[in-house]
């Protein structure tokens, strides 16, 4: 099996809490997954699901209770590996006494770039994230969206192989989000691996080769957005027009009506019988489509399942 860009094996994280830190709260439980080389991977989950915990574990900002992970074949304990990865923290906050130019120049120094390379890269990144005209302003005067752009610039400053972005769209206006999407797609075109966490499911659907859904510290589903939804696909939807007297067509009881247009959902096995009945009643069939849940519906289904399980455990515990 070829080496994945990010390989996570049985990663767990517990936080002590309570009196004398005797109790433990599981923030991440036995996470095993791979992000393949060159893919854009979306990490989805509600607040507190364990997305940021996983990313912080990968970045060695916190340490696992159990398990291991490798990035580009190197253990996450190996600091030299950080030369090939870029990281945007959630709600980034940088030294506010520096200008964007100074901050990027400061970070670039850790990547052993020559002075001319450094100057060139810093300038190019500022332009790429649209901060070229604000580069001499101290970061304390920046808006949240501008800080997010600086964060993105420092993450890709050294042209890393793997880019890890924690909520990259957070705080951005629609234009900013579009720019971030373009940057992610640009990274993909250049063969880079991108792992990003997000709440915005439409972004994940649009950008990701694969997504992982994490709820309550556990990975609940992983695969291409289409695959995940196909697994759950069920039923058909018919859109048709019917003017005049419809008689006593039983199908109409289940249909929703807008003017002369009707929309009805039914099991796949009943499709042909329904079409025959509609044809006999003089209906004009406009479309027949398979009902595919959106990523959002799939996501909500997993979250609700998790909550139901948690409350069941709570009740049985009582």
């Amino acid at each position: 099996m070829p080496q994945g860009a990010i390989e996570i094996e049985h990663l767990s994280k517990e936080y002590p809490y309570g009196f004398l830190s005797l109790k433990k709260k599981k923030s991440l439980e036995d996470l095993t997954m791979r992000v393949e080389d060159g893919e854009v991977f979306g990490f989805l989950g509600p607040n507190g699901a364990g997305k940021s915990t996983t990313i912080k574990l990968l970045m060695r900002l916190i340490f696992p209770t159990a398990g291991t992970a490798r990035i580009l074949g190197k253990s996450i304990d190996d600091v030299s590996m950080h030369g090939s990865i870029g990281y945007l923290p959630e709600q980034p906050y940088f030294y506010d006494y520096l200008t964007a130019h100074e901050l990027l120049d400061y970070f670039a120094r850790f990547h052993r770039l020559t002075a001319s390379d450094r100057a060139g890269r810093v300038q190019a990144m500022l332009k790429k994230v649209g901060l070229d005209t604000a580069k001499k302003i101290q970061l304390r005067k920046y808006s949240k969206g501008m800080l997010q752009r600086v964060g993105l610039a420092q993450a890709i400053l050294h042209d890393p192989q793997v880019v890890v972005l924690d909520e990259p769209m957070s705080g951005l206006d629609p234009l900013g989000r579009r720019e971030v999407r373009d940057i992610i797609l640009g990274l993909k075109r250049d063969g880079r691996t991108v792992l990003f966490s997000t709440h915005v499911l439409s972004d994940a659907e649009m950008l990701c080769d694969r997504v992982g859904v994490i709820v309550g510290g556990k990975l609940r589903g992983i695969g291409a957005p289409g695959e995940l939804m196909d697994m759950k696909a069920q039923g058909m939807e018919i859109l048709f027009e019917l003017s005049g007297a419809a008689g006593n067509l039983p199908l109409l009881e289940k249909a929703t009506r807008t003017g002369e247009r009707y929309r009805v959902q039914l099991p796949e096995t009943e499709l042909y019988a329904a079409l025959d009945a509609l044809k006999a009643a003089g209906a004009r069939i406009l479309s027949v489509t398979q009902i595919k849940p959106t990523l959002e519906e799939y996501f909500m289904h997993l979250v609700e399942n998790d909550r139901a399980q948690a409350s069941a455990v709570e009740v049985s515990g009582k």
Partner: protein
Amino acid sequence: MRNVQTVAANTFREAVRDRVLYNLVFFALLMMGAAILVGQISIGIEQNVIVSLGLSAISVIGIFIAVFLGVALISREMEKRTLYALLAKPVKRWEFLLGKFFGLVMTLTVNTAAMAAGLYIALWTVKHPLLKSDAYILVAVYLILLKLALIVALALLFSCFTTPFLAILFTAGIYVAGLFAADLRTIHGVDLDPGALRLMRGISYLLPNFQNFDVMSAVVHGRGVPGTIVWHATVYAILYIAIVLTGAAVVFSRRNLK
């Protein structure tokens, strides 16, 4: 060491931009006031008053900066989460810690040097020309700087595992206790249990002995400072700082960030 240098330079820049060096204005005013006052009221002891006041101010201002900024070096970075992006770069945690230490020591060096220059100017206004023996003031300033570096190391260590408030208390507490470290070793005639005396003596050797860096009384009276005292204090400070920073690095290297 390049990473250490880079972090140190940025820490110095932070101190300058956060207007830490503004304390020099206070020091300058104090020295000007003292020079004017001394010229009017004291006869023959101008040098003693100016040197004593100047060295005390250098020490006290330096201690405040070392304790408060020393604790803030790491705790502020953790609280504001500014070190997240930095630690994701190819930087080892001990390099970051050492860089922060040297950055603040660099700030204190510039600050102390500027204050020493101010002290000489004040001295010159009450007594000129300056004498060769006045050069001993520099020795006292150097030893104050060593003391400040040791305080910064202690502040860094405490801020690695406790809250900023407690770290300030611990650092200040150790400093005060360290001023009496030598006295604890020579306690006689006190009605104490021999076991307690042994414990006290043991603690006194663990505490940093800040009396090693105090040559003010000799310098104020224009007496020389033996070279052995300077060497001893230098080696002692370097070793103590190395041990404290190693401890800080060990704690910080396993610390989970929020």
